[in-house]
């Protein structure tokens, strides 16, 4: 009998339906992989189980009896513990304190029992001592540990809760190979003792090495569950992508042969030796699983990340990438993915939001601004991009998501950029607005800009891009051109199925 049954799970975030009738059935004593392309709803399903996300509708049974999970405490009560890539450790507390956090053993009157805490921590941590280079730093603040060590603490915290169901959501992302080894040993022991481990990883080799079953999600729905021992890579990819018609529309190659933008050996904290070039008028797509360095690459090209090595040349001249201001002056524009935080001043008028990046162009003697010139420039852009607004003096926060995004793009058009970087520009906006944004991107390319375009939506990426670079863990692992630019190729490449590293 299945230990865990999740059926009809539905969750809407604003305008996005993250889960639509998703299901998962898994037995105790197995390691069950949860697979799916970007935005398929793996994380949301995990979080539904662990109580971090409360679904709009779901029926969950554990051990045959229906359960309601309204928060982490409920999940804990039903024996569910979770490890996320995004850590839930408190930097200022020690390793031991973090492991027992929320379940501190106490003596009379609620006074902490340090010895018992240490015992609990030692029980789970000792197992991982190879991952800490031999000695476990019980009393070190977690904030002082390396990311991999912090991840181990996070894992131990989950293990200390003695779960019947353990969710590992990208828990291996920041681990070294040796650490992964130890973790896998522990996971196998847990499996053998009857625990269900739900495992999500972008590293397919890990999935094949560790998991027994895999459930595949696509667009928030469960496609099916297969035993991994029998599954081929093609089968998996097909499940993830589904039956899609080959794109017939001829890719417009307006791109000239003249290479204008060259990225050479770009390395930052998150990027490894990234090199590529973009021709004038070309749209270069950035693909792969989410969070593999696409946004980091765009930020670095905009001067917003510390560059350890490498350079970016435009027409053979290095771009100044020490600050966004300098990059913008040199003709680089970034339309960020996180509009609210990075792209706009929500409570300021539309006028100001449009003017801000390019004011220096219209300023007399670099100082004096003419209200009229500012308004004229803004009005021009509003018409050109077909932005639906009440008045230029309205706050930008009064606009719909699509129109907000057009204001953010318009801001940079006013600055007449030579290089346009777009970081998931259509995230969270409606279909009509999306089409308009696509049109603007084409127009930008046609007018001779070099466009680099990151998208979490594979179809959009395929439709818009002349070429697609596939990133994995901060490096370029593949380049898809012409005939290769298909969704299956993209997914397969993103999952690195043919080039799987062995553990």
């Amino acid at each position, binding site marked *: 009998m299945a230990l865990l049954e999740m059926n009809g799970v539905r969750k809407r975030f604003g305008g996005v339906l993250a889960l639509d009738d998703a299901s998962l059935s898994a037995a105790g004593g197995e390691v069950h992989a949860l697979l799916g392309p970007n935005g398929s709803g793996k994380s949301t399903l995990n979080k539904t189980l662990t109580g971090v996300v409360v679904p709009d509708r779901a029926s969950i049974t554990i051990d045959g009896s229906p359960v309601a999970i309204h928060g982490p405490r409920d999940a804990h009560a039903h024996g569910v513990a*979770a490890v996320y890539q995004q850590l839930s*450790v408190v930097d*200022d507390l020690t390793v031991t304190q973090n492991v027992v*956090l*929320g379940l501190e053993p106490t003596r009379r009157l609620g006074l902490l029992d340090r010895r018992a805490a240490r015992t609990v921590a030692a029980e789970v941590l000792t197992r991982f001592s190879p991952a800490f280079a031999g000695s476990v730093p019980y009393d070190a603040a977690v904030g002082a540990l390396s990311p991999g060590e912090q991840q181990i603490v996070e894992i131990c915290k989950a293990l200390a809760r003695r779960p019947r169901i353990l969710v590992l959501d990208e828990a291996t992302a920041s681990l070294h190979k040796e650490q992964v080894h130890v973790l896998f040993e522990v996971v196998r022991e847990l499996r053998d003792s009857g625990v269900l481990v739900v495992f999500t990883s972008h590293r397919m080799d890990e999935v094949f090495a560790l998991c027994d079953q895999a459930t595949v999600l696509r667009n928030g729905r469960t496609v099916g569950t297969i035993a991994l021992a029998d599954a081929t890579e093609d089968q998996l990819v097909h499940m993830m992508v589904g039956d899609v018609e080959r794109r017939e529309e001829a890719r417009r190659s307006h791109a000239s042969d003249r290479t204008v933008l060259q990225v050479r050996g770009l390395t930052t904290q998150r990027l490894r030796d990234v090199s590529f070039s973009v021709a004038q008028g070309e749209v270069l797509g950035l693909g792969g699983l*989410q*969070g593999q360095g696409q946004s*980091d690459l765009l930020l670095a090209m905009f001067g917003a990340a510390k560059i350890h090595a490498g350079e970016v040349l435009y027409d053979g001249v290095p771009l100044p990438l020490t600050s966004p201001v300098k990059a913008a002056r040199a003709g680089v524009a970034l339309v960020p993915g996180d509009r609210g935080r990075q792209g706009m001043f929500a409570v300021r008028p539309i006028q100001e939001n449009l003017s801000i990046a390019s004011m220096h162009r219209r300023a007399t003697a670099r100082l004096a601004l003419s209200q009229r010139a500012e308004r004229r420039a803004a009005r021009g852009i509003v018409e050109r991009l077909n932005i639906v607004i009440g008045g230029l003096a309205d706050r930008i926060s009064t606009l719909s998501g699509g129109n907000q995004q057009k204001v953010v793009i318009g801001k940079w058009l006013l600055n007449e950029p030579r290089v346009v970087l777009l970081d998931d520009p259509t995230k969270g906006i409606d279909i009509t607005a999306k089409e308009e944004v696509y049109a603007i991107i084409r127009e930008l390319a046609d007018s001779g800009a070099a466009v680099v375009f990151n998208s979490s939506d594979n179809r959009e990426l395929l439709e818009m891009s002349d070429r697609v670079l596939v990133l994995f863990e901060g490096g370029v692992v593949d380049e898809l051109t012409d005939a290769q630019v298909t969704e299956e190729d993209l997914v397969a490449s993103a999952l690195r199925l043919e080039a799987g590293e062995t553990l």
Partner: protein
Amino acid sequence: MNPAPPGTREPAPATLAHWWGRLRDIQVSGTATVAMLVVVIAVNVALQPNFFDQYALTSNFATFVPLVAIAVGQTIVVLSGGIDLSLGAQVTLASVVTVQLTDGELGNLPLALTAGLGVGVACGLFNGLVVVVARLQPIVATFATSFVFSGLALVVLPRPGGTMPSEFTSGYRDSVLGVPVALLAILAIAAGWLLLRRHRVTRHIYAVGGNAEAAFASLVPVARTRITAYVIAGMFASVSAFAILANTGAGDPFIGNELTLTSVAAVVIGGTALRGGRGGAIGSILGAIILALVSNIVFFADVPSTYRQLANGLVVILALALAGIPALQKRRSA
């Protein structure tokens, strides 16, 4: 989601919020606090030859206690990620309630002190509920409740009056085996904190202040912990009120209000970051003593009275500026 990697600069321009964030990050190292204390004591001794006389010591410690108590309370709220701008008003309210109920009679004292403590608990609970349930910014919410509490104080005791029994005031100025009672009170407050530190709720307060989301995911009852922090702070405000009553021997409906900001200064000088989760109350105790001694120094240094307030302020700013020097800050984790 693709969280911005650490080390990248945000493309957005620096905002006020960003600078407030920086300010909140400032944390003085324990060494710096102790160094400041040593310097302040040394200078005070140099300027005041009778610093170690019985009266000078006793009166100094008597002066420290109210500030020490309220600073410990403030520390606990700050550690939980909040701030309590109503603590001074709570001191006022607790003190007037206590003095009214005591009515000069020693026999009424136990009841009155219990009621005073109850006032602190009630005020703290009220603050906690306003902050947690109504989800108001602590700085705004407690600023608002401070008017409620000081308004209530005026209702309880419309004009200065009431007396505390002389046993209470003289006992406070007494010594036990040569050790001033006020010093014992400070040691008791410190011991109370050290005990509290070993309590589960304090661990949760650190966790919530350090990373509320992580604490929530780790099954820490975040809301309850926040409220508890305000309640404990309210209890320390009551202790502060008792010390003030021992100092003054009478009630005054405006007495505690100015302690609030000094308590925040003591917390910062004592090495607790205003962002929460880091630091501890022992530092705040030393911070409170430093602040009190600084105003002594300014007096004994014969700074002309017109400049005294300025000098006082400058010394406090200097202390806070020292806190901003990276070398003196507690090493932050990567």
